């Protein structure tokens, strides 16, 4: 298979200055997405370690692999984890999870942790679909919308496009601004057609940067339609892979006339779901302790 341009790089991280041995309650969240899987470990409700890996063709193995990688080098074992919540597409077959909660609830809760209680609107662009979520000051979902078929401005569309142009996905954003004039967005309603339209532009001699710009702006306008339906309320944050693609984010901010809170240092927007799941795990564990 040729080089994989369209996958975000895999990595793991342990937050500095934290020691799990001093922690009371250690919980985990495992987000098995359609394209990438994330595992997050929290100690007493604080982010301790996380890892991001490609989702393989079997979700139970992917969950196991990404969890082991998160544990790697910390000295922690799986049975030190008091409670685990599975989320994402493959949430039902995370073998070691105590409970499954959808990524909509987890992304809202995770965004609340990462950006604080002023967050009211969370945009999550996962591999498969795009979600616009309203939440309250504690990260509880009050309403949400997911893209319907024709407006399928999914992460998937961007990945296929990056692959088509053999441009590593992290560079799609910056490259899409190396242009003199902002081109007309690729206009078609459907990702399949947007792609063939963009290929047509290439054929007309447009250079890559211009075509990337046209495609990013088409993606941004499609997401803005979803956001306009749910009425964006301040503060607005973006989670998921697309948050790292300034080509889409900057153009989206211009269309809806509102800036998203910037990404926090050391907090990858792709793990928002995993963090939310780990925090739910802590609350669920404490509820069980109180009840017992």
């Amino acid at each position, binding site marked *: *298979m040729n080089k994989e341009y369209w996958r975000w790089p895999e990595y793991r991280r342990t937050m500095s200055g934290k020691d799990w041995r001093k922690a009371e309650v250690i919980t985990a969240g495992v987000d*098995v997405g*359609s394209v990438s899987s994330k595992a997050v470990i929290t100690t007493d409700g604080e982010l301790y370690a996380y890892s991001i890996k490609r989702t*393989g*063709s*079997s*979700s*139970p193995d992917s969950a196991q692999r990404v969890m082991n990688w998160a544990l790697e080098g910390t000295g922690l074992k799986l049975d030190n984890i008091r409670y685990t919540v599975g989320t994402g*597409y*493959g949430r*039902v*077959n995370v073998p070691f999870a105590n409970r499954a909660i959808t990524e909509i609830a987890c992304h809202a809760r995770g965004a609340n942790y990462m950006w604080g209680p002023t967050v009211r609107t969370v945009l999550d662009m996962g*591999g*498969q*679909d795009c979600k616009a979520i309203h939440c309250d000051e504690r990260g509880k979902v009050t309403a949400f919308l997911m893209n319907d*078929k*024709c407006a*399928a401005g*999914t992460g*998937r*569309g961007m990945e*296929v496009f990056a692959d088509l*142009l053999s441009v590593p996905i992290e560079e799609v954003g910056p490259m899409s601004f190396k242009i003199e004039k902002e081109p007309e967005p690729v206009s078609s309603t*459907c*990702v*399949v*057609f947007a*792609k*063939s339209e963009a*290929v*047509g532009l*290439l*054929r007309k001699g447009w250079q*890559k940067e211009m075509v990337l710009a046209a495609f990013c702006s088409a993606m941004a306008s499609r997401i803005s339609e979803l956001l306009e339906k749910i009425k964006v309320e301040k503060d607005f944050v973006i989670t998921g892979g697309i948050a790292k693609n300034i080509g889409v984010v900057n153009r989206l901010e211009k269309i809806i006339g509102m800036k998203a809170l910037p990404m926090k240092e050391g907090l990858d927007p792709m793990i928002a779901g995993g963090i939310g799941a780990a925090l739910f795990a802590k609350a669920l564990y404490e509820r069980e302790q109180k009840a017992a």
Partner: protein
Amino acid sequence: MITAGIDMGAKNVKVVILKDGEILAKGQTLSGFDQKAAAEKVFNEVLTEAGLSREKIDHVVATGAGKDVAPYANGEISMMGADALGGFFLFPSARTVIDVGAEEGRAVKCDDKGKMVDFVINERCAAGAGTFVEAMSRALEIELEEIGALSLKAERAVPMNAQCTIFAESEVVTLIHEKTSKADIARAIHDAIADRIASMTRRLGIQKDVVLVGGVAKNVGFVSSLKKTLGVNLLVPEEPEFVGALGAALLPQKGIGGSEK
């Protein structure tokens, strides 16, 4: 008479050189971003393979999505017209030629001289047949060449979304997570495209014999699914992706349709 046909396809450029109804040489390369340069490269490669220089070629006819930027061409013909001529040349009993490429699906009806009389192209929601299979083989982590054969080993037919390739893709992800066997998923993928291509061909009305061409015709899984859905035998040439270029090359020798560029 020596003629050449250039098929400026979405994914690949294909060239065929013909001498009095005999294929002298053929070749293809990825279209990439500069289709004109790619076409020039492969055209000259095929020339040398045929041991000819450019002046020896009496007519060069272009076809395919990018035919306006085809180098050296002094004639053009629509993709459907080329499919009809090429399919008929290889199978004189052919009256219907189905062409399934990377982006589009097409079907053509021709008369007893190989001239196109009617055509259909796939509807918007059913676009991207070829790229759909590629994306799915990547999701299943299987080589593109193997996914066809794998689908033949399926035990049961898993229903999949009828209308839209994007939602069909996300359904495959769900099937993966529900631990459906890869063979069954592969079968579901091929059945889904076969349904769309059959649906399109029925719009044209199927007249026997039916020839299947285009890059996806090399996928045995797809051929088997389409045969089952259409309920008719399918004639598949060895190198189905060259039929368009062959049809273009045949045009000057047949003097039917097409026009000076």
